[in-house]
């Protein structure tokens, strides 16, 4: 019991004194997951919108695949990315294994289906509402997609935040492809796992506080967004 209290206190101290290791790890986490978020969004937003407005032969199958991909266990994604990037794998020559880039790749694969699926839901609803008008105004495909993305921006932002939350909280895949190397690929979740294993609860808890604070911030942002959706303040 005393150990835990001491750990909490020490962890808290690390946060308020902006411990160098803690800041370093936090910034790396943010860098990796924000990069993954930007790349995943660039793929998922147009893809989800396109699935919502275009009718083609394998549309249902594509949507089912997307939903299935959303359920992929991150550890398996990590394993696959590891195999692809390992020295003997097809992309081995790039030398990406155990770099932040490998972690970004894994996170992109994990959150793209999630963001695309949320986008698809929101866009399908909006497209049903706008369909006749946009057809009547003789809009191009590009104009349709841009209109839907703009007018559905709050739902899309919510989806993106959910994706970011999943990325920054994930541990299995990035542990495998990043290797949890100090000052190189160590991020919040992998550091917590390591420090806990070592029995150094102070740093583990300090990092845990940061992660919890980020999660609360995200949820607050999502909540605020869905409120402005109802009140239309922007």
């Amino acid at each position, binding site marked *: 019991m005393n150990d835990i209290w001491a750990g909490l206190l020490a962890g808290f101290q690390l946060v308020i004194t902006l411990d160098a290791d803690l800041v370093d790890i936090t910034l790396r986490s943010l860098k990796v997951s924000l990069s993954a978020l930007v790349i995943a969004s660039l793929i998922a937003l147009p893809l989800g919108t396109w699935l919502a407005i275009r009718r083609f032969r394998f549309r249902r199958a594509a949507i089912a695949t997307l939903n299935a991909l959303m359920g992929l266990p991150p550890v398996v994604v990590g394993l696959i990315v590891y195999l692809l990037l390992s020295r003997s794998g097809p992309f081995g020559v790039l030398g990406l294994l155990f770099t932040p880039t490998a972690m970004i790749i894994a996170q992109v694969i994990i959150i793209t289906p999630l963001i695309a699926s949320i986008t698809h839901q929101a866009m399908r609803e*909006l497209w049903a*509402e*706008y369909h*006749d*008008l946009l*057809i*009547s*105004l*003789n*809009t191009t495909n590009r*104009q349709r997609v841009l*209109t839907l993305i703009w*007018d559905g921006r709050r739902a899309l932002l919510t989806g993106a935040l959910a994706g970011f939350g999943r990325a920054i909280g994930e541990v299995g895949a990035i542990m495998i492809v990043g290797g949890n190397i100090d000052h190189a690929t160590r991020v919040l979740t992998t550091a917590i796992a390591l420090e806990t294993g070592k029995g150094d609860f102070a740093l583990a808890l300090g990092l845990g506080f940061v992660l919890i604070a980020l999660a609360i911030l995200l949820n607050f942002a999502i909540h605020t967004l869905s409120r402005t959706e109802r009140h*239309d303040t922007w």
Partner: protein
Amino acid sequence: MVAKPPSVALRDLRVKKRGKTILGPLDLDLEATGFTIVLGPNGAGKTTLLKVLHGVERIATGTVSWSMPRSRMDQEQAYVFQRPIMLRRSVRQNLAYPLALLGRPKSEIAIQVEHWAGRVGLGNLLDQHAPRLSGGEKQKLALARALIRAPSVLFLDEPCANLDGRSTREIEAVLQAAHSDGTRIIMTTHDLGQARRLANDVIFLSQGQLHEQGAAADIFTNPGQPKTKAFLQGDIVE
């Protein structure tokens, strides 16, 4: 003023839904000018006919030929839906939208938006969120948004259904002004009084068939078909 409106000819036209013919077979010629009212009981095919003319309904057989190339026709027509579709944006942005699609300069768009908002009495609601307008305001916004591209042909599907007398009068005034500016108007209505006030000529549809077409003055005083006559008298017709 708008460009000279085109005429249109339908030949052997059929629209099918789930294997059932819901419109046609019909032949129809519409002159390049005028204010045409499409009348007929519920389910007669009025909306379908309007959508065929507008080019957004898939046709099973036949042809629709405008006296203007298709590519130009796309820019020269506008459609006001029975249930107004509001973009989830401000009134100002709703009005600007059709012009922004055409890539018009911002300064020109701003002038047009002010002008048309004023024309339909929405001048002081420009910054309102459009989905929150009243039914009458939405319909006026939809009308202004249709007219802002100065279409030479304007389609309206029961634009005054469920509106109060005042809104109806305001919309009719805008329509009459557009008509005198040279816009060709083709419109459906349930309101026979409105049809009498506005129509130059009338099309009477029933069960997907064209029953009668002619000058308003003739049809209202002396309908050629018993069914038209019954409908105009207010009898229940299918």
